[in-house]
């Protein structure tokens, strides 16, 4: 049983939305401990529930728009993850927090104990074929370090560090 799950969310074809995909690829190059599972999802939403298997730690990696300068890395714990109490108007609008709340209520045995969102502030989300904007590109190494740091809390001491 994996103790930690990292779920990266994003569309690799679309500018800053690709940040989750880019981080996913970087994480795969790290020798992560066996108890860490890393996944890529296109959009978060309800599909997230299916992936949870009662891990101790869940880290969701996604582009965010919280109003900070592009490239800002937000590491938010469960209490800090912005809810979307609003009703979505399309299948695109179902959020991470809602999916996890549903999971906790309906499938408590699958819900992770500790949940973090590593959100990278993006600025461009509507250009297909465009690369990451500079601020977001520059933030990649630090974002990966933040994720690895979160994962240390569940890694066994003799696991390879890098």
């Amino acid at each position, binding site marked *: 049983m994996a103790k930690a799950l990292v779920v990266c969310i994003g569309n690799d074809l679309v500018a800053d939305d690709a940040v989750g995909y880019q981080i996913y690829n970087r994480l795969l190059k790290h020798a992560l401990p066996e108890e860490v599972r890393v996944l890529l999802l*296109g*959009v978060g*939403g309800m599909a997230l529930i299916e992936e949870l298997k009662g891990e101790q730690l869940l880290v969701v990696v996604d582009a965010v*728009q919280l109003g900070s300068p592009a490239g800002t890395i937000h590491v938010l714990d469960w209490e800090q993850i912005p809810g979307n109490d*609003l*009703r979505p108007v*399309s299948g*695109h609008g179902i959020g991470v927090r809602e999916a996890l709340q549903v999971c906790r209520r309906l499938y408590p045995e699958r819900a992770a104990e500790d949940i973090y969102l590593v959100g990278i502030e993006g600025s461009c*989300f509507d250009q297909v074929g465009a690369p990451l904007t500079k601020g977001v590109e520059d933030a990649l190494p630090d974002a990966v370090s933040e994720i690895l740091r979160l994962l240390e809390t569940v890694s066994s001491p003799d696991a390879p560090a890098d």
Partner: protein
Amino acid sequence: MAKTINIDPVTRIEGHARILLECNDAGSVEEAFFIVNELRGFERILVGMEAHTLPQITARICGVCPTAHHLASAKALDNAAGVEPPPAGKLMRELMYMGHMIHSHALSLYVLAGPDLVFGLEGAAGTQNIVGMVEKDPELTKKALRMRSLGQKINEVIGGRGIHPVTAIAGGISAKLSDSQFGKLQELTTEAVTLVNELAPVTKELLLKLLDDNPVLLDKLNVPSWYLGTVKGGKLNVYDGDLRAMDENGEIRAEFPTADYAKFLSEKAVSRSYAKEVYLNVDGGEHMYRVSTLARMNVVDGMETPLAQKEFEEFRSRFGRPCHNAILQMYCKLVELVYSCEKASEIMLNPELRGESRVAAQFNGGKGIGHVEAPRGVLIHDYDIDDAGIVRGANMIIATQQNTAAINKSLKEGAVNMLDGNDDEKMLNGLEFVVRCYDPCLACSTHAVGRMELDVEITRGGETVRRIRRDR
């Protein structure tokens, strides 16, 4: 003198979509516009790519309807290569697609619209969402989510990959169905049929109660339009068939193969949005039309499978043909959900499913056009491919583009009835409800946490008089 409205893109976090309401001097709504902040440049990046990669690439446009793009693209490539997939290739594609339909309709019907069914329209905002629905009716929600999940799994077993399917190629499906895939599909499709039989009556009861409790829905959201949908032998088929156009009086006015789409559909650039609007050209006129489940239920003569046919007959006897009410998309999705589950299990019984799944395909230069009924309506892919197999041009017609004019009209209907008083909350709820009926495709990257889904801007004489948005 009209004032120019500048919305500063730095200080303003963009919403997924915007509604613009133009009022006259008396303050009543004259025009409503639904403006999608849509993805730009997709067709352009396809140019120069190797054609055989398009089913995989185009599936990645969207995390909500990847399989629709995947299959429309594969069909366009079949067409370009002048080949027809063997029976197993077609059946596997269709079965994969039934999985996608089940997933998409379950999501739309239960996760998006479900709270309206469970709470009615007057519930307190903040609890009226999927999380509140779980508290109110955990058993229904659990079944609904299981339904979505079964569809997703059927899609995955054939599509080969979680998010974006990869197995449909020019000429069919990349590999024939294995024993282990077949075994899994048997379990999944059997459970799907059992589950939909439990869900359908409960869902229908909730829906009819919603309509009874809110007579305004059936009274006010009738927007007459033309309809376009796919039929095969007169019956519904979402994977294959010809396009049938019906006018607002219910007369069938044209039926044509995909390859002729450009003769019947005209795309128009509009000043307010990057998305082009599309109109039906029939008998010299240019007609506003709708696609999606409601359009399909209007144009078809019947359903191929028995339980869906029964639901379809009930729908038609209650609401007539054509039915112009956008709210009834929910009912139509239920009929199609039943159909997709039944059809999936029917395909499993077809011995041809286990045959060879592909024929060789090669591109000799020319056009390739293909279409499917995406969950939200007709989706057309049209490519120019050169004799080296390189894409030289691409055009796509997606569902929301075709519905934009009707969404505008529905929003106007809704807004006219809701703008009185200054109750922003009520107004937003109402307008969101209208948009949700269409479950539009928005910019596909828009899951980003923190993004607003909808802004409403009200103008008078070109000047913004109110902007309504929710505070986070």
